[in-house]
């Protein structure tokens, strides 16, 4: 069984206009193993997976799955063959029930609505979940949606399940359950391809790891033969001694007081942010961290709140007010809230500072200035794009995130709120983003950092607030406090 390869990919190439996404890629996946794939943003991981699942066609090369050569394939063919994929973005129809999502397009095979729900309920139970199959997907939490995706993959009796960054929106608890399920799958002889930027997970879960860089496979080895440092070096092509930069220490005088912030979800949230400080917010999914960030930025309706910036009461009713006061915000959902996907890199970078690029009574946008500013950020943040006119929809996740950050850097914000800034972003780019954060605070700005990755918050923040159920439950100095202490408060 050990020697049997369920999937053999050899010399696959794929080019998009302007980028060579896959360059002679070869990978072999054994039956019943968890095969990790790591690599920087834009390394080509998702592209490879989309070729396997039939979304894209390969330009050349061969793919042999389960002894069968795959030439042309559609997503449905792949599913029928036994390749399921859980995409980076959720792929469920929000307006339909769980059961129907699982058996989408196979209503007849399931002999109607009743059969569908019966089978779905069984599948869900098998993976140890208790979701009602009649629930509409839009009423599910992130983790539950993931469960539904997995159930859907299982429903095809898949031999290979591809998970493209499944953990990027899960909390630790949910992650544990996911791991259990993956192990369950593997024990049944199903192979799993697991893509993640969280190296800990990869080490914990994967038997074999393939490292990709710039569309090429750099190495493919059993996980046990790899060290973390080695892996990182291969991924980014250089050694990174520390995953986190040295904690910036330039905390100054109080800058912003938030007092009595109440919304539908938040109860009397009060805190202070100092100059040059990185303030971390930790909490479980749904604790209300995003809500705090959005309220502060004026993006949501606030019942009552008092914001005092540098001793002066300010009123923030809409994002525009916040921006006027030098607050920037990187939202967690970059596709829906962060970027205008069909627009160019340049347009996306210049949105927030557009006013400053205008001149004259009629506010003509200076195109040279706009070009300058986008060039500057592209170089500064090393955004991988063929030109400033490329449409951002074609960029990889990490590069997309950098564009959003670049947008705010152009504004020289006093306070930058980062909501999950490194979700789905590779180690190299993460480090760059950390360095950026450091630079911002060193230049006198302040940062509010929201992240579901505890190490990240604890290693970067000067101070940490724990949020639970819309309330601030504690305040810690991460250098002093122990992880358990903090976790206690996070749980409420």
């Amino acid at each position, binding site marked *: 069984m050990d020697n049997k390869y369920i999937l053999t990919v050899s010399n696959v190439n794929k080019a998009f206009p302007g980028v060579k996404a896959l360059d002679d890629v070869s990978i072999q996946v054994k039956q019943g193993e968890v095969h990790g794939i790591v690599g920087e943003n834009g390394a080509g991981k998702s592209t490879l997976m989309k070729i396997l699942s039939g979304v894209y066609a390969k330009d050349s090369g061969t793919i042999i799955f389960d002894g069968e050569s795959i030439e042309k394939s559609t997503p449905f063919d792949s599913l029928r063959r036994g390749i399921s994929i859980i995409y980076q973005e959720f792929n469920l129809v929000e307006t339909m029930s769980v059961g129907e999502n699982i058996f989408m397009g196979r209503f007849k095979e399931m002999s109607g609505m009743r059969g569908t729900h019966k089978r779905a309920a069984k599948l869900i139970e098998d993976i140890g979940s208790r979701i009602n199959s009649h629930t509409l997907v839009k009423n599910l939490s992130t983790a539950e949606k993931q469960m539904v995706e997995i159930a859907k993959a299982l429903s095809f009796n898949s031999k290979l399940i591809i998970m493209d960054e499944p953990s990027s929106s899960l909390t630790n608890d949910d992650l544990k359950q996911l791991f259990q399920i993956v192990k369950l799958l593997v024990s049944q002889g199903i192979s799993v391809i697991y893509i993640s930027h969280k190296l800990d997970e990869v080490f914990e879960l994967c038997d074999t790891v393939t490292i990709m860089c710039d569309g090429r496979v750099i190495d493919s080895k059993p996980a046990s033969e790899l060290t973390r440092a080695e892996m990182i070096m291969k991924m980014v092509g250089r050694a990174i001694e520390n995953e986190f930069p040295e904690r910036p220490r330039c905390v100054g005088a109080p800058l912003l007081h938030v007092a009595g912030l109440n919304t539908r979800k938040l109860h009397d949230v009060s805190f202070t942010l100092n100059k040059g400080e990185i303030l971390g917010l930790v909490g479980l999914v749904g604790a209300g961290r995003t809500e705090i960030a959005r309220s502060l930025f004026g993006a949501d309706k606030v019942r009552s709140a008092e914001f005092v910036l540098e001793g002066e009461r300010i009123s923030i009713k809409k994002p525009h007010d*916040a921006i006027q006061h030098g607050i920037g915000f990187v939202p967690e959902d970059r596709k829906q809230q962060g970027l205008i996907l*069909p627009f160019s890199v340049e*347009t996306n970078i210049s949105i927030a500072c557009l006013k400053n690029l*205008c001149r004259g009574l009629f*506010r003509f946008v200076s195109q040279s200035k706009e070009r300058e500013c986008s060039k500057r950020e592209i170089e500064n943040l090393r955004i991988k794009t063929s030109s400033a006119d490329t449409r951002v929809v074609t960029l990889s996740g990490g590069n997309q995130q950098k564009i959003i950050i670049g947008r705010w850097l152009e504004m020289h914000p006093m306070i930058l709120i980062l909501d999950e800034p490194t979700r789905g972003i590779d180690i190299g780019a993460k480090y760059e983003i950390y360095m950026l954060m450091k630079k911002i605070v060193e230049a006198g700005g302040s940062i509010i950092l929201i992240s579901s990755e505890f190490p990240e918050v604890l290693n970067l923040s000067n101070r940490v607030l724990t949020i639970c159920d819309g309330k601030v439950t504690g305040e810690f100095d991460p250098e002093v406090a122990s992880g358990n202490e903090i976790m206690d408060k996070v749980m409420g």
Partner: protein
Amino acid sequence: MTVVKHIVSMNDGRLERKARYFLLNHMLVVLLLLLVIVTAVVEPNSLSIGNITSILRRFGAPAFIALGLTFAIITGFIDLSIPGIVNFSAVLAIYLINPLGQVGALVVVLIFGLAAGMINGLLIIKSGGTTQAEGLFITFGMSQVWSAAAMLLSQGKTQQLRWCDRSYSLFTFLGSYKIGFVPIAMVVFVMVLILLNLLQKRTFAGRCMCLVGGNKTVARLSGIHVDRTILSAFMICGLMTVIGAVMLVGRVTTASPTVGSGFDTNAILAVVVGGTSLAGGKGNVFGTMLGVFLVILLANSMNLLGVSTHMQNVMNGAVLLLAIWADGRKTSQLK
């Protein structure tokens, strides 16, 4: 040898692609030229100054309306209230000439245009409607409301400028007079076109409309005044529609309370044929002008060619579908 062959074939492909790309890209211009040439061959009079003047004069009303609509569409909406606004403002203009004088009447209807646009915008903003679909039927309802108002005001009667003691020179000046062979309406239109093109392509406000049309959430989170932008787009649309109505009244010197019907369809077709995407976020003011030209020239040519009214509908539909198809091909090639 094989290498050379390969290069040659690649070049061939590229040339062919280029040619096809060019054709698709300039389909509208090609269509227009074709139309002009065919008509000129069959009916040489079509190139006479008289015909050109008459086309240019006819151009005024639909052109202004389509121009305004372009902005609503860029911002991600479709304004279906156009017929109602035209109906009401045309009737209102003539009604007001006696009590207010021509300048007064003109000013009031222009203000009405802004107000009608603002009402559309406010209804959409206040209801939180962010999608095209939500705006579509609200503006359709408003069209009914304004049409009914026009009916109530006129009691169904066609209003005549001549009933206003012949003091209608300002309106006829705008709608019928010409400098050389160029009608005033055309001169005004070109000026407005240039201004609005600048507004759309070069200014902050124009960019805001594109951004809002692209993604409202992102625009809002980036500090763009989304509401204000939507409002201004609809106000531009309302104002332009009323200017169109004034040009129409000036040209034909009458205003019936149903005069506006069909203007919405023609305007939407002209805008889309001109290369502005209904999805929002992308617009082409000059394209709209060409689109209107296509719609008008089509009617003119077919009248000259002696195509019956009935067949004209068929031809209109077919040519417009062709133009839309070509535009669609173009964008899908760019993807």
